[in-house]
């Protein structure tokens, strides 16, 4: 049973995301259009409802916020113009900031590995990304067959490339950290 006794989560998420979550009238259109909703433990519209109810812990521990690929199909179709992907972003940030150890840890590692690579070189290097991901999440040779196939098709190069001015990229990252 949900026990409602006032909450600030709604105001906080509305402010951070700039989205009017109260406008939602639970038509489920976002759920039916979402390409990954069938893998989610809580459908996106229910996430909006839980924000209203202030069930922060449950939301931040859910797989849904990490499974969202931010494809924005939901936001495009929403009759009330709520950009749910943006809401999901805010929730992801909240989870990271509060150090919530939720589900779908691999996705979180993936995000971190991706950003680390960008910070280092300004450009993505698939092989390093996969290496970092696999080293941190375990199972280094798990997808090796797929890797070989992709390599044969020329999907990734062995040597990483860099942008000309990596210092600028690092500055951007520094600034973002200072804002956070």
């Amino acid at each position, binding site marked *: *049973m*949900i026990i409602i*006794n006032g909450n600030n989560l709604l105001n906080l998420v509305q402010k951070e995301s700039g989205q009017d979550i109260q406008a939602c009238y639970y038509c489920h259109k976002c759920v039916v259009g979402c390409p990954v909703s069938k893998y989610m433990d809580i459908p996106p519209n229910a996430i909006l*409802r839980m924000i209203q109810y202030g069930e922060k812990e449950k939301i931040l521990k859910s797989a849904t916020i990490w499974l969202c690929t931010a494809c924005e199909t939901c936001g495009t179709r929403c009759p009330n113009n709520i950009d749910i992907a943006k809401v999901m972003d805010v929730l992801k940030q909240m989870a990271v900031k509060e150090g919530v150890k939720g589900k779908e840890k691999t996705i979180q590692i993936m995000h971190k590995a991706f950003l680390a690579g960008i910070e280092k070189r300004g450009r993505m290097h698939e092989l390093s990304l996969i290496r970092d991901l696999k080293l941190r999440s375990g199972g280094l040779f798990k997808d090796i067959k797929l890797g070989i196939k992709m390599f044969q098709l020329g999907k990734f190069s062995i040597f990483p490339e860099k942008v000309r001015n990596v210092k600028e990229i690092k500055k951007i990252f520094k600034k973002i950290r200072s804002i956070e």
Partner: protein
Amino acid sequence: MKNIGVFICHCGINIAGTVDVKRLAEEVTEFDDVKMAIDYVYMCSDPGQNLIKEKIKEQELNKVIIACCSPSLHEVTFRNTVQSVGLNPYQCEIANIREQCSWVHADKQKATQKAKEIIAAVIEKIKLNESLSPIKVPVIKRALIIGGGVSGIHAALSIAYNGYEVVLVEREASIGGHMAELSETYLTQECSPCLLSSKIVEVQNHPLITILTNSEIEELDGYVGNFKVKIKTKATFVDQEKCDGCGICVEKCPVSIPWQSEEISGKTRAIYIPYPQTIGNKAVIDKKICKYFTEGCTKCKEACPKNAINFKQTDKIREEAVGSIIVATGYSLYPKEKLGEYGYGRYKDVIDGLQFERLISVWGQQNREIRRPSDGKIPREVVFIQCVGSRDPEHGVPYCSKICCMYVAKHAKLYKQAVPEGQAYIFYIDVRAGGKGYDEFVQNAIEEDGLYYIRGKVSKIFQENGKIIVWGVDTLAGRQIEIAADLVVLATAIIPSKGAKELANKLKISSDEYGFFSEVHPKLRPVESPTPGIYLAGCAQAPRDIPESVSHALGAASKVAGLFSEDLLSHEPIVVWVDEDLCKACGICVEVCPYKAREIDKWKKIAKVIEVLCQGCGACVTACPNSATQQRNLTSKQVFNMIDAAISIK
């Protein structure tokens, strides 16, 4: 004598698809008495009507049968058509071969045969038809309006501005009705009593309107254009001429009414001044609770500086003659005793919508600061529950009360405006906000004022540590919910006004199974009661909000003005008549007549017919043991001939 013309309509394929109209026309032509029969694609169209006119002249027809759709659709059309070429309209009859034949059958052969039988029967009827002309009766150009709420007030003004006299009867001590009890209106968010008071002043100052407050209908006699009404004016025990509304008497009165059981706004003592905003502002005494009548208390009488209190006043009966009546008796709320699961009556902080209106009203005792009834605390969490009783067959109210979705949104909005840091939760089954700007209003309340709309019902309400605990369900999230609230407001069902059933009996008008007065036709005649001259306005007919009540009342008023626009009224001449030689004045017809159209002539010792009241229903015809009563153009002979024709035709 061959003088009958039969016109068969195809009605597109509605009839022609199932009935072989060509063959039918050929076969009907061969009947005795039929001079000609012809088919046409749409008889009701201009060319179709012209065809009828031409043939009447050309073939010298003097009786016409149109085989087409139901007479309720085009009988009037075709009667006017034949009248325009000089035939008596009652020499035109409809043979219904659409609703009663083509629409309900599939076999073309058999349907054609049935159509032929129907036409043959109508031929037998028309052969004995008399030429009739409408009955004319004079009309008293004066209207009676029962109920002085927003509907009654608007109807009264509209009729008075048309130049006719109006008698406005109100049961309570002041006109205004429920609208005067509201805080603000939805959509416009205007002060409801202020909005209404301008209209109340208009009614009170209009020279053609007589207002009778504290009055009820005792008896009704007569018929459209000539009603006689007995009106009882209850004693108020206060001389309304002398009273200046100073309110000293109210302060002295020892009988105070608990806030919760207050029936009408402003009624806080046994002597009270209803609705502070009404013009006049006079005190009245409620005899039921006044201590003078039990213990001889005379505190108010002693205190009154104008010596206006007179305990010797008695009820007065007056008679009024009117031509038309509008019933605008409004609504009541569902009885609270029956709502045990919501704790109504058990917990002081569970209130209904009208009580909440009083809580937030501009002149209410708590002055805009919302404070809950039990301990005067400002409520931080308020739960509103929609469909309390409504849409609930178990509570005997399967219908939707219609206005709750809107006023609950308004209530929650007003609450949030008064207590911005508070939270409002609304339990609903559906949000039915149909109307111009209605859904936008609700959606705006949700978005701007941050209301929580929870789709689901409440199962239990109980008290714990000074909080009202509400157990409900969120069906969209599929979960149970518990809310610790400070105040619970129930949107209780709208039911007919107290005494509506008794009034229906007195006026001889019908009401539906719930007690709302019935209209003649729900789509096309929504303001007329089945009794001619009696019209319906506002919530007396069905739950509706202010704009709808006003439109409905203006509709009824325009029907009255239409009725009064002529000096003589026309009445359908298909009525009954009495064969005086056969009548024994047994009085059975008087008992069975639902329209009070039959009475016994004591001198002649026969049963009479008051033709203007007779609706031609035929109840007395079948009840008469001597067959002394017969209906015009539908005599027993005609009916038996029709049956013979229908079963003998090959």
